[in-house]
């Protein structure tokens, strides 16, 4: 054994040692091809050989510079020599957003902003963003009216509307940038783009999950479907009374009392007024009237002219066309 060890020790430099993986490989050793060896003998031979190889790794490992630790000596392993394939592709660089492209073109650079800003209204220093922020336009309780303001407009509603629009715009931009990133396969790992509906017309959006509240409502309605209208039934936990109790339709009294006029007339007048007032601005649409007049004239002229070719007229329906070509033809006709 000792002899063999020494002989093997000389051979050690011939082993391939990959210290990063603590691996050793002897590419020269061959096992006899005939199987006269018993299994036990073979395993023993392997283990003996393996011991030398392990010793070769240990020789390299234990001579590395080490630092003492509470748990034992620590060594710095070199990187593995054996090249192995990756698990996933290399992370791809994110394409610049539209703003980043624009900023670069214009030479706009990011500047650091203070987190805390002076608030004019309260005269204190407050956070720039977030809850209770400085110079918050949305928190102003009184908006002073100007001469130019439209009295019919609610400035608070307008403010809310504007804010909503800004959020929508930002969301749209974000989605656009994410789509672009997805094209390069560089979506941030925690973001997914999920199709809510296929871009084919007629497909429905994915069904929404029914909430607890809605279920309660439905249960309440369902419970009224008994002869007694659910009066004697036990209530389920979370069940809510049906929203619409009683009658939906109401009829006006048949006999009229003494009043200014009949109630029914009043009702119809009310509806009529509503419709009239709603459409009052476009009772006379000048533009429309003019085009209608023009079209009529055109038709008349055509019918005068077109007696020679009635088939041509038949083929073309009266539908308004948006194509340029058609429009030109009309001009030519003139």
């Amino acid at each position, binding site marked *: 054994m000792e002899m063999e060890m020494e002989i093997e020790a000389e051979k050690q430099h011939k082993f391939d040692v990959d210290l990063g993986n603590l691996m050793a490989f002897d590419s020269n050793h061959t096992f006899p091809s005939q199987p006269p060896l018993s299994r036990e003998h073979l395993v023993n031979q392997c283990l003996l050989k393996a011991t030398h190889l392990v010793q070769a790794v240990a020789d390299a490992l234990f001579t590395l510079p080490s630092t003492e630790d509470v748990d034992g000596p620590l060594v710095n392993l070199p990187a593995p020599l054996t090249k192995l*394939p990756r698990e996933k592709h290399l992370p791809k660089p994110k394409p610049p957003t539209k703003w980043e492209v624009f900023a670069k073109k214009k030479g706009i650079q990011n500047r650091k902003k203070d987190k805390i800003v002076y608030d004019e209204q309260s005269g204190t220093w407050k956070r720039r963003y977030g809850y209770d922020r400085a110079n918050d336009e949305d928190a102003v309780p009184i908006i002073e009216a100007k001469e130019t303001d439209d009295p019919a407009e609610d400035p608070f509603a307008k403010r809310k509307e504007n804010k909503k629009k800004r959020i929508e715009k930002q969301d749209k931009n974000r989605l656009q940038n994410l789509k672009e990133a997805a094209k390069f396969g560089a979506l941030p790992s925690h973001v997914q783009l999920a*199709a809510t509906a296929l871009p084919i017309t007629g497909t429905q959006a994915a069904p929404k999950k029914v909430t607890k509240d809605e279920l309660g409502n439905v249960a309440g309605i369902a419970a009224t479907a008994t002869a007694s209208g659910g009066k004697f039934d036990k209530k389920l936990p979370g069940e809510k009374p049906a929203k619409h109790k009683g009658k939906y339709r109401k009829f006006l009294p048949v006999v009229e009392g003494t009043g200014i006029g009949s109630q029914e007339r009043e009702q119809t007048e009310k509806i009529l007024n509503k419709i009239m007032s709603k459409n009052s601005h476009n009772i006379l649409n000048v533009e429309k009237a003019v085009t209608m007049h023009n079209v009529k004239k055109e038709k008349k002229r055509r019918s005068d002219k077109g007696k020679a070719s009635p088939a041509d007229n038949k083929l073309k329906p009266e539908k308004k066309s948006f194509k340029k070509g058609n429009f030109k033809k009309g001009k030519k006709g003139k």
Partner: protein
Amino acid sequence: MLEIKTAKTRRGKRELEKRAPKLVESGKKTLILHGTKTSAVLNAVLAQIFHLKKDNAVKFSRKNENVKPFEAGGETSLEFFSLKTDCSIFLYGSHSKKRPDNLVLGRTYDHHIYDLVEVGVENFKPMESFSYDKKLAPKEGSKPFIVFIGEGFEAVEELKHLKEVLLELLRGEVVENLNLAGVDRAYVCAALSPNRVLFTHCALRLKKSGTVVPRMELVEVGPSMDFVIRRHRPPNEGLRKEAMKTSREKPKKKEKNVKRDELKGKIGSIYIPDQKVGETALPYNAKGVKRERREAKRKNDNDENAPKRKKEDA
């Protein structure tokens, strides 16, 4: 038409970030599963390999009908499992008349099958059949030595491939710092013939040798088995090239709490936790306690103090 879905919780986000492609990868997880039929031998093989790799493996216990790695269409299910469990090495066991005790080792790249090696298991000896000093038993998750013996691993294409897969399967975590007191196991793979590999697991006994380097001794602790090469599918050349890509740049670690000043040079700031002066315990002088008890307490205190004084005197 598109909806942006993001992680709802921080924890979920962290979990997704762990799975994202990285510049320097942290290590591959192993998925262990079996087909519709397995033999007792194969069950033991899978269970014991799982035991060896417990810190970094997932084992499925149900039958899998749809998994047939070598057949077209049989890999869909496997790729899905690989995606779900985030494993990129898999071990699939099956047993049939044509291929008894069949073990398929494979790797995935981007959750698609990268390569496959099929081996038959013979001469299996489970862990329980080895008797040895239990003090030597290797600890879970320790970094193993790996030894390959035989020219077959260089000369024969299949064995060369198997060597790479086995190395990847066995090597465990790639570490920078290693505790020398923690090396306690070795895997031995020997190419007995062009299609047969002996695999065994040994514990290491470190003996004093008089030098810095201890003398190594191997104690077989099992499992031990023979792998007989069957089918194999090397990686596609284009895919291999892509998978071997590495980046020269190292990911930078964010430097925190360090500033640089032109005059003072490098300035580090240290966080000192709140000392909580308001919450420190005060000497306990209760007033609501009955007089007898109060007096008894005072007396006891005096008794405790008394011997101390004596000691000081002495």
